[in-house]
């Protein structure tokens, strides 16, 4: 029996979607803030340091045991950092191209959040029609690849708008790098969809739940996608556009305060988006072996969301760890890897998968 409708369908759709957007964006921003903390802590531990362990609001230390522990873990550091960004002077150098200079940080950050729209972060919540995805597109992966490639414009624009040497070099590197890895990334996911036979990400997850995780079916695809994701998110070992040791921060050299924070936010939101994509494409989304049916209760739905977030956090940790493990590639090595290794391997991978599928179908 259904409760009588209080709202017309369209209103309900809009309200539920808005609610979902809030429920995605707020946790993502929190994850971003705490990913920075984890990054600092992990880097500290890898380098025999202790990391942030001082920041504490007044009175928290009065709480026995928990207070000092929270301080030692640096739980309040992201809040202090955020506050600092708000209070800092937003300096715009006189020689920049103002309009583009203001536009670039936004263009970097928005695509990262747009990608999250098509990610199914859970099965259903409450009634079966209430899918846990903001936009249930039939061409989810095409949308994702299209939007992800928009991210580069922000960086290139920042490099151009800054009107000085290092950001310019950063922008150039960024565009070259993005172009080469975009192709490898796009080609690498084709086998996944050849096998599942559907471009909708929600149904891809259901397929993985019923059969097997894609990382088992096509490990080569996963590896190429992972490496390309590192390049797309400008993380080490492919942080050519930024490379703080050669380009003094690359494309965001001239930025300060909140505009710089937007780039920073964009980078980490990109990491979240890439991790979410990898969880969806290769690690079965919200499914676990033995837990593959869409949830029928609210508790089950929440459990699925928790599983998705847990997988996402593990991949985030991989992103963070690799940054402190590997040195930066040289520019030509990067290009060589992209064009001469990954693209042929990805093409061969597509062919091999297609042949196997064809033989099986006969």
């Amino acid at each position, binding site marked *: 029996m259904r409760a009588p409708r209080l709202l017309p369908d369209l209103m309900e759709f809009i309200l539920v979607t808005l609610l979902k957007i809030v429920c995605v964006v707020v946790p993502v921003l929190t994850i971003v803030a705490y990913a920075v903390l984890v990054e600092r802590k992990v880097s500290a531990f890898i380098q*025999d340091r202790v990391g942030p362990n001082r920041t504490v609001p007044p009175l928290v230390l009065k709480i026995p045991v928990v207070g000092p522990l929270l301080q030692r873990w640096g739980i309040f550091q992201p809040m202090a950092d955020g506050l600092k960004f708000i209070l800092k002077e937003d300096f715009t150098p006189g020689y920049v191209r103002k309009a583009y200079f203001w536009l670039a940080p936004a263009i970097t950050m928005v695509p990262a959040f747009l990608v999250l729209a098509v990610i199914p972060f859970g099965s259903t919540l409450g009634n079966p029609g209430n899918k846990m995805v903001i936009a249930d597109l039939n061409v989810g992966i095409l949308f994702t690849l299209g939007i992800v490639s928009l991210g580069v414009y922000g960086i290139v624009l920042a490099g151009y708008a800054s009107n000085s040497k290092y950001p310019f070099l950063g922008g150039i590197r960024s565009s070259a790098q993005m172009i080469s890895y975009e192709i490898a990334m796009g080609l690498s996911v084709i086998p996944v969809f050849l096998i599942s036979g559907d471009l909708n990400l929600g149904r891809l997850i259901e397929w993985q739940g019923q059969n097997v995780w894609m990382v088992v079916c096509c490990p080569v695809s996963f590896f190429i996608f992972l490496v390309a994701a590192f390049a797309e998110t400008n993380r080490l070992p492919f942080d050519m556009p930024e490379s703080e040791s050669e380009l003094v921060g690359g494309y965001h050299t001239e930025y300060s305060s909140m505009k710089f924070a937007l780039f920073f936010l964009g980078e980490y939101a990109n990491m979240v988006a890439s991790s979410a994509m990898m969880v969806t494409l290769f690690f079965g989304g919200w499914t676990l072996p033995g837990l593959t049916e869409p949830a029928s209760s609210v508790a089950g739905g929440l459990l699925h969301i928790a599983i998705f977030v847990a997988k996402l956090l593990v991949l985030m940790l991989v992103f963070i760890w690799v940054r*402190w*493990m*590997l040195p930066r590639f040289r520019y030509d090595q990067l290009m060589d890897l992209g064009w001469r290794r990954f693209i042929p391997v990805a093409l061969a991978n597509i062919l091999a998968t297609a042949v196997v599928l064809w033989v099986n179908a006969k």
Partner: protein
Amino acid sequence: MIVKREKLSFWERLYFPALLGGFKVTFRHFANTLFRGRNTGKELSGGYYPETPWKVADGYRGAPYLVRDQSGDTKCVSCQLCEFICPPKAIRIVPPGPNGPVPDRPNAEKIPQEFEINMLRCIFCGFCQEVCPEEAIFLKQDYSLTGLSRKEMIYDKEKLLALGGTHAGVQKWKQKLEEAKEQETFPVKD
């Protein structure tokens, strides 16, 4: 000399052994720091900076200060070599002139009327210590210099002498004075 570069084997060119090695190293450090509480601060000085100041190694070049000799006299004779050698021009010396102060030490010719080091300019290169013929200026082990204004960071002669303390070493001019005295009472033989 030409260093021959070894050809990488196929396995090495795959990049995976390097990945594995990197993970091993980083994981070892990560686990040691996180679970066994080992970190550089603790191991080098037994604590973290503001509470436990860092232990300075021998030969560390900290802030340059003026020193006194064992009798408590200013060693500097205002020769101005350090002022001339100082690459960032952080040192400024006012020589005594004809009517200036007389040196503390007997037998020394001059004493600086004013001796200033701008610690904001100083690059801690140690040239002043190397060039000083009187062993009057030394780079001590102070590494944490703070002040609330630029003016406060210009250390004058009194401050430099107070911070520098006494230097145990050869008292060149005292020895010369004693030699001169000996000359006067030297028993001349026929």
